[in-house]
């Protein structure tokens, strides 16, 4: 079965559970943002109600967005600037 590998860069509170630096995430193809969000549920430090945005190409992506090999994705909790 074909696998895809993408780079994940967490921001904010997600760093406490996923680490300060980026990492590679692999999944059977086809994979979507929904698969990534489901995978995040295994981390006890990430509250299941925490809204997590997935960003690719400087754009917030919906659950159905299909992931491709080599993509760099950013995981973001609710923003808190300003």
């Amino acid at each position, binding site marked *: 079965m074909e696998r895809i590998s993408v780079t994940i860069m967490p921001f904010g509170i997600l760093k406490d559970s996923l680490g300060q630096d980026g990492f590679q995430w692999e999944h059977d193809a086809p994979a979507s943002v929904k698969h990534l969000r489901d995978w995040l549920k295994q981390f006890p430090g990430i509250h299941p109600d925490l809204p997590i945005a997935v960003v690719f190409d400087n754009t917030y992506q919906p659950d159905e967005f299909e992931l491709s090999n080599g993509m760099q994705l950013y995981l973001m909790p609710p923003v*808190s600037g300003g």
Partner: protein
Amino acid sequence: MKKHFSISTHPVSLEEVKTFVHQPETGATVIFEGIVRPDTMPNQEQVANIEYEGLTEMALSELEKISNSIQERYEIQSLYFHHLLGKVDAGQTAVWVGIGAKHRKDAFGALDLLMDEVKKSVPIFKKEISQQQSAHWVVPNYNYEK
């Protein structure tokens, strides 16, 4: 409309903001500074500083979208926005905003809308740090420690 968006580890001066937003036909300028508050953290320690991080390129792109929506609602002539990244001590400014318009209501309305939208979509994140070096990520409207 004349506009400036920047995000960096370097502070700017109020004079720079004022000079930018004051156009020949300006009748009202509103200058806003967002200052780090010495709030009490959930562990009852006091905030000594806040560390900001963000995705700069996307943040600038979101600010551009926000400025477009502001222009649809308010008649403004100039808009200046600067947000610091990195560590900012309590009492220090982290955000500078300036709006220039012909009329007061447009300037105030635009500022209010800008800050509301920044807090919804601009990818900047903050971590409160106490004098004792405890850290607490700020997640608006969400009590993740419950």
